């Protein structure tokens, strides 16, 4: 196993372009949410050094609807953290469609490791 060859596959760069767009859209969407949250936070006169509200998934939409800064900030941060995972999910679909079985398994394993991180955080948190 001295040399590993990673065949670029037969997608002709289409997969890379699609995944690039996934990252771009995810980044811009999350930054817009964070920016709204920051504007609301600054307008409320609260200092960012005050301890922020903890993440409560069930309250997220209500906070957004009530234009509370923490709602937009948490939604934006969750979108930031999820964006690379979406890229891996997109790659999984692309590899599976293109018949690149080994790379599809790699993508699946990465998502498995991320899921393990969620589990580890929940168990130890």
């Amino acid at each position: 196993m001295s040399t590993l060859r990673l065949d670029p596959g037969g997608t002709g760069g289409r997969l890379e372009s699609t995944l690039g767009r996934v990252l771009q859209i995810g980044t811009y969407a999350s930054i817009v949410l964070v920016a709204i949250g920051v504007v609301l936070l600054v307008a409320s006169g609260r200092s960012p050094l005050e301890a922020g509200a903890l993440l409560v998934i069930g309250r997220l939409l209500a906070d957004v609807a009530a234009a509370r800064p923490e709602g937009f900030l948490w939604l934006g941060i969750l979108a930031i953290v999820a964006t690379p995972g979406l890229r891996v999910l997109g790659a999984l679909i692309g590899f599976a469609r293109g018949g690149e079985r080994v790379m599809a398994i790699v993508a699946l394993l990465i998502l498995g490791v991320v899921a393990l991180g969620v589990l580890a955080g929940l168990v130890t948190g």
Partner: protein
Amino acid sequence: MEVGLLMLVGGVAAGAFGSLLGLGGGLLIVPLLTIGFGLPLREAVGVSLVCVIVTSSASASVYLERRQANLRLGMVLELFTAMGAIAGGLVAFLLDERLLAAIFAVVLVYVAITMLRSRPAQGDDAATAAAADGPSRSERLTGSAVRRVPAGLVGSVGAGVVSALLGIGGGIVKVPVMHLVMGVPLRVATATSNLMIGITASASAIVYLLRGGIDVNAAGPTALGVFVGATLGSRLGGRVRVGMLRALFVGVLLFTAFEMARRAVGLS
């Protein structure tokens, strides 16, 4: 209100600096938040991880479209960096903050020395591609044929651990591992490292997030600032004299290392 704007401006500076010098902003964000704003180190690391994901996603989207990053190589390696990142994220909550500060200081000095010694890498990619035997020239140029895979995988786990402990992208480990150990051309290694940073930092950010290690009020302005700064930096690149900037950055790194070392021994 002023603190929020200062955090935003600090984020812009860290993002621009990082982008202009080809480093993630993480090395500057953690010291900015701890030394500048008095945040606990672990909380600053959590915020920095969020910022690092933003810059990675933004730049990786460009690298992927230009096919400068090797998607397949990046995904094989990020499987291992993600494992390291989760382990690092869990260990970070067990370590004394003073020990974390000491590790940070050492890493800052290492990066400062590396920057002082670095020379423009002329003909580097060509040299890598012109190696005597093994893969073809085109395989070497795109990084689609790599050598010493086991060592590369171990290095990737290490990069993930460092990233999660210190809130940095881990490029300082990943790029040398890919380039020097696995024979990937420097330009491809840098772009691929950028791609990998996203999922690596995500894996550990999830652990921090679920353990209450990310403060939303601090993360918002800083992440927004870093995004704006990194975007500005990428547009200014080429128009700014990087030599001067590099010297200034080394000074900032050494000062920050000194402050972190003081923190490590309990003097601040």
